[in-house]
C-alpha cells in the first residue's frame, strides 16, 4: 500500500471539497471512485483501517469476480488503489462533528470537524460502517489483548495448538472459526440462540471438522483467568440454567455489530440501534448528506451491498451538487 499520500487534516484545513466521505471501507472507497471519476474533488476521512471490517476478513467468497475467493486485505487494498488512482485524498483523522455552515454566503456548505482541524464540503457521504459489539461480560475488558480478541486474522497465530472459544455462530463467527482451525487444537462455539444463524455453506464446512463443539442455546457468563491470561469461560444453558466451565486459552467474540454513528447525534436521523435512516437514494434527512454501507438501515450487511449503496450515494451526491447554486 502507498501511504505517502496520507495527509493530516491540519495540513488540509484550508481546503474545500466537493464531496467528503466519512469512512474508508468498501462503501466509501466505491463512492470515491464514482465521485472522483465525475470530476468532483473528493476526500475520505478514516481514523482506523482503510478497508474497514472487510479488510480483516480472511477469505471472502461471496464477492463476485473472484471464483476462488479473495482475502479481505487484498480486495480492500485493490479498492484503495483504484480510488487513489482517480484522485481521492485519504485523510487519517477522526471526524467528531458535522454541521451546516450557516455563515456561508453560498448554498449550504457543510463543516466537518476532526480531531485536528476542520474542512468544508458541498456534499457528505457517511460510510462509517460498524464495529464489533462488546458482550459486556466479566473479564472481557480485563483480558482484551491477553486472550480476548475480535480479529481472528490478526491474532489466530498466537493460539497455535490451543483450545479456544468462539462466541457467536453467525456468518462472522463460523467464517473466522474456519480460519482459526488452521492454528488451534479445538474450538468450543457458544451460541445464544438454539440454532447457528450462519449460511448453510459455512455450516457444512465447519461440520466436517471433528475438533469443534457447539454449545447452543447458551449464554457466556464470564471470561476468567489468572490475571495475565485467560484460563476458562463460564457458560449457562438457557433452558436448564445449568452452568458449565470450559477451559480455553482464548476467546474470539463475534456477537454482532454496532454502527459507528455516535458522532452524528443531533445531526442526522438514526434508528433505535443507531443505524442511519436513508431513503432509496441514500439521502439522509439532512439536505446534501448521504449515507451508505453497513451503518445504514439496510439489513443486509455485505460488501456487495456496501459497494452498491456507495455507488448510489455517490451518483446522488453528484446530482445534488450539480443542482446547487454557487
Amino acid at each position, binding site marked *: 500500500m502507498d501511504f505517502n499520500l496520507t495527509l493530516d487534516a491540519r495540513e488540509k484545513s484550508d481546503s474545500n471539497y466537493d464531496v467528503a466521505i466519512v469512512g474508508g471501507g468498501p462503501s466509501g472507497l466505491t463512492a470515491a471512485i464514482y465521485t472522483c471519476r465525475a470530476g468532483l474533488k473528493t476526500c475520505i476521512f478514516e481514523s482506523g483501517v482503510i478497508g474497514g471490517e472487510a479488510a480483516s476478513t480472511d477469505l471472502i467468497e461471496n464477492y463476485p469476480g473472484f471464483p476462488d475467493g479473495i482475502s479481505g486485505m487484498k480486495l480492500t487494498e485493490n479498492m484503495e488503489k483504484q480510488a487513489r488512482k482517480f484522485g481521492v485524498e485519504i485523510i487519517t483523522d477522526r471526524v467528531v462533528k458535522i454541521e451546516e455552515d450557516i455563515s456561508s454566503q453560498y448554498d449550504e456548505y457543510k463543516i466537518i470537524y476532526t480531531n485536528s482541524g476542520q474542512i468544508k464540503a458541498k456534499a457528505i457521504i457517511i460510510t462509517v460502517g460498524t464495529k464489533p459489539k462488546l458482550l459486556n461480560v466479566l473479564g472481557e475488558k480485563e483480558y482484551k*489483548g*491477553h486472550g480476548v480478541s475480535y480479529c481472528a486474522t490478526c*491474532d489466530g497465530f498466537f493460539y497455535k495448538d490451543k483450545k479456544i472459544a468462539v462466541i457467536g455462530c453467525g456468518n462472522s463467527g463460523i467464517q473466522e472459526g474456519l480460519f482459526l482451525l488452521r492454528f488451534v487444537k479445538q474450538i468450543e462455539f457458544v451460541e445464544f440462540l438454539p440454532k447457528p444463524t450462519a449460511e448453510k455453506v459455512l455450516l457444512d464446512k465447519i461440520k466436517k471438522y471433528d475438533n469443534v463443539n457447539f454449545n447452543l442455546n447458551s449464554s457466556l457468563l464470564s471470561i476468567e483467568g489468572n490475571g495475565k491470561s485467560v484460563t476458562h469461560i463460564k457458560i449457562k444453558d438457557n433452558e436448564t440454567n445449568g452452568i458449565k466451565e470450559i477451559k480455553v486459552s482464548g476467546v474470539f467474540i463475534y456477537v454482532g455489530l454496532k454502527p459507528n454513528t455516535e458522532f452524528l447525534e443531533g445531526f442526522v436521523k438514526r434508528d433505535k440501534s443507531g443505524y442511519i435512516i436513508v431513503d432509496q437514494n441514500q439521502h439522509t434527512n439532512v439536505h446534501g448528506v448521504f449515507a451508505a454501507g453497513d451503518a445504514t438501515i439496510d439489513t443486509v450487511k455485505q460488501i456487495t451491498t456496501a459497494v452498491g449503496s456507495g455507488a448510489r450515494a455517490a451518483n446522488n451526491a453528484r446530482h445534488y451538487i450539480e443542482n446547487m447554486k454557487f
Partner: protein
Amino acid sequence: MALELNERNFDQVINSGKIVLVDFGAEWCMPCKIMDPVTEELANEVDHEKVVIAKCDVQAEPKIAQRFSIMSIPTLLIFKDGKVMDQMIGVVPKRNIKEKIDQYIS
C-alpha cells in the same frame, strides 16, 4: 526509521535510558499495516536524544512476544528503564501515542 528489534538488540535498546516505544505487529495483520506509517512518522518527529521508536515482528521474534504476553496485534508498549510503563492495543492515532510518550519524558 523505526528501529527493528530482535533477540540480540532488544534488551540493550529497552535499557538504553531512553523512552522506547515498541510496535508489535506482523505482515499478515491489516491493522498493523495501518500502524507502519504512523510509527515511521513518529520516528522522524521525536527527539532522538530522549525517545526511540522501534518495531518488533511477532512471527520472527516469538520469544519476545511471549515474554510480554502479546496475544493481540498491533500492540504498542512503552518502556522506561526496561520496564513496561504503558500499553495500547489496536489502531491508535498518532497524537494519542505522542501524548503518552510525552508523559514519560522527564
